[in-house]
């Protein structure tokens, strides 16, 4: 039984179509990554899942039943727009938010203290919210989403704006919660975060589903045509005919093989490199999620216009590959 099921959901605001014919299914006890660039419809999709807005067409089912507001008590939600009552005491704020989720004040206070200990933020509890740093406020809101021990945890960009230490602290927490059988959905535009954590993903762009499935399955669909090489000496092998593009770094290179090069091309390239250089590292991988995403968007939306949102990151790629 899927915990979350969106079926042919569509939502338009005035003239802009935010989500178009989106179908997503999330199984119990899995970690699901909702990916896409800014403005791709991630937040709009999440808002429809929890009834903040209703879809124009299509259906939303949670826990195997059509959405009803009663289900909100079983959902923990961290919105993208962080917000807390600024003037309010942190612990009182957590208790207040907990009570709105149908747990008693005393239970809420006990859990808030427990969570604050786990996330190493206990010293913030007696303070006023406005006195906390942005990152600390984000952790407090993270706790607020978990206080009522929800079965489904939905987090919109949970790690954005956090330093690496805190980001990995929250990631570990989510992984722990998944092991306890909770279902977790989070959105991000940082593809690298998802690769490690998620069982399943959905990539959306322009409100449309571009790619979905389990992490391993998606990656297996793509040839292992990426090579990372660290070497010393002659770099003439970088002009090998099987290479499509090269990104040079001091003593290293990232290589994309030509699609037509065949499965043995990597071995041929290694031989060519060994002929003139000393190879310290040679790694053959499948494309990163980011690369798959860019490729996929290019396939589904051939005209450059539809690709504007991704232009920034693409431009960065083109620049670095020009050195080849």
């Amino acid at each position, binding site marked *: 039984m899927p915990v979350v099921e969106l079926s042919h959901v569509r939502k338009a605001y005035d003239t802009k179509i935010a989500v178009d014919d989106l179908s997503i299914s999330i199984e119990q006890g899995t970690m699901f990554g909702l990916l896409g660039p800014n403005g791709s419809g991630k937040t709009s999709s999440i808002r429809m899942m929890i009834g903040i807005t209703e879809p124009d067409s299509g259906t939303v089912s949670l826990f195997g039943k059509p959405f009803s507001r*009663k289900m909100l008590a079983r959902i923990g939600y961290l919105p993208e727009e962080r917000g807390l009552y600024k003037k309010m005491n942190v612990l009182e704020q957590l208790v207040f938010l907990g009570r709105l989720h149908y747990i008693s004040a005393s239970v809420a206070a006990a859990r808030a203290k427990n969570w604050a200990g786990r996330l190493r933020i206990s010293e913030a509890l007696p303070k006023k919210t406005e006195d906390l740093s942005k990152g600390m406020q984000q952790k407090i809101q993270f706790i607020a989403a978990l206080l009522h021990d929800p079965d489904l945890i939905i987090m919109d960009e949970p790690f954005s704006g956090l330093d690496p230490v805190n980001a990995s602290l929250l990631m570990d927490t989510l992984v722990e919660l998944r092991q306890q059988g909770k279902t977790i959905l989070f959105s991000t535009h940082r593809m690298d975060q998802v690769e490690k954590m998620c069982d399943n993903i959905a990539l959306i762009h322009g409100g449309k589903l571009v790619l979905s499935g389990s992490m391993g399955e998606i990656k297996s669909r793509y040839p292992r045509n990426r090579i990372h090489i660290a070497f010393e000496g002659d770099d003439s092998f970088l002009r090998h005919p099987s290479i499509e593009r090269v990104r040079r770094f001091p003593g290293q290179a990232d290589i994309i093989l030509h699609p037509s090069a065949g499965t043995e091309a990597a071995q041929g390239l290694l031989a060519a490199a060994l002929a003139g250089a000393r190879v310290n590292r040679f790694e053959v991988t499948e494309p990163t999620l980011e690369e798959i995403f860019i490729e996929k968007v290019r396939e589904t939306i051939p005209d450059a216009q539809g690709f504007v949102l991704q232009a920034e990151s693409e431009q960065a790629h083109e620049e670095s590959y020009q050195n080849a």
Partner: protein
Amino acid sequence: MLNLRRASMRNVWIIAHREYMERIRTRGFLITTVMIPLIIGAFAFGSTFLASRANTDLHIAAVSADPQLAKQLQDELLRQRQQDIQSESGNQASISSHGRKPLNITVEGVAPAEGIRKALEDELDSGKLDGYLWVTPPTQGGMRSTFAFTPRGSGMSSVTTWLAASLEKVLLRGQLEGHGVDAGETNLLLQPVTITEVSRINHEDSEAAAICVSVLFFVMYLVIMLYGMNVARSIIEEKTSRIFEVMMSTIRPEALMAGKIIGVGAVGLTQVGIWLGMLLVLTASSAAVHLGGNTLHIALTGKQVAFFFVYFILGYLLYSSIAAALGAITNSEQELQQLNMFLVLPLLSCFVLLGTLMTTPDNTLARVLALIPLFTPLLMYFRVSLGHPAVWEVALSIVLTSASICGIIWVTSRIYRVGVLMYGKRPNMAEIRRWISYS
């Protein structure tokens, strides 16, 4: 369904409780609670103090060929002041239409002469005189003298009317004397007639009741303005702090609106309660009672007090739900200020209508207006207190107002829900209409 409704009520309570506790603990609450009565007290005390000081002496000159006139006029003025003081002590709450009469009155007789007007003008300028009366004798027989009074500054019109009344009596007294009527008989003839009003409904005089009702009216106005705007501000705060998304993933916007309105309103009621408590303590101690010169007494029946609370709460809920709507369509306090005339105008029009209603609370205009929800809280309360509205009118007014409150909260919560999700510029009317129809 019942379960869900109970859950909703619980959420309304939680929201209201937070709103109440957060507000009551602020320094701002403490300051307004203490400062507003202090300011009003200082103002009342200051104005009566100034008024009493300004009027202690009245020194005027009478320019007349008749040397007796000045003396007669002074006697008459003093006599009238004495009568006023007597009637005032008999009717505590009445406020004399001429204001308070000065304590020392001197009328100096001046014979008309060359350059006398110039001399008098100089004395006016130097402040020795408060005004001078110029008497021009009749040019032909069968006519009366004409009188012109030149006061030192403006704002002495009450003195002018008072002088006219006194002169009339002086002249009448002179004529009666000329016809041989003796002084005692003349006094009796010229004694003013006073009518004591005996109210049919209760023993309190209706004028005092009207004053008390007006005071409550003002309290209602003040609280609605202060706390209605607080509701709007609280909603804007929700938007600027971006907490609305968490709230809306938990509770219905209707519950949020209702909770805010109730919570902020409870703060208002607490404050009014504290003020009333202060007033009771003050009136209980005799020292403060004569603060304004007039004795305060509360001339209200139980019915008037009960209906005050009914219409006060209805009025507050109605106007604060309008304020909530204003908060929902604006993004900042500056924008809110541009729109707060929607709150002020209906309240001000009630104020304007108050004059006619005071005298005729049961005429057709009043009956119709009091049924319009925007005016009901203030006007129907007035009619209930001072007029005789039919039972069905009272019931209908309560039903209509309650329905309006629910309607406005419903519409507001929709505007709020869509408005916060589409932050940015202020919406125009067409957009608001579309938002209401959004789900």
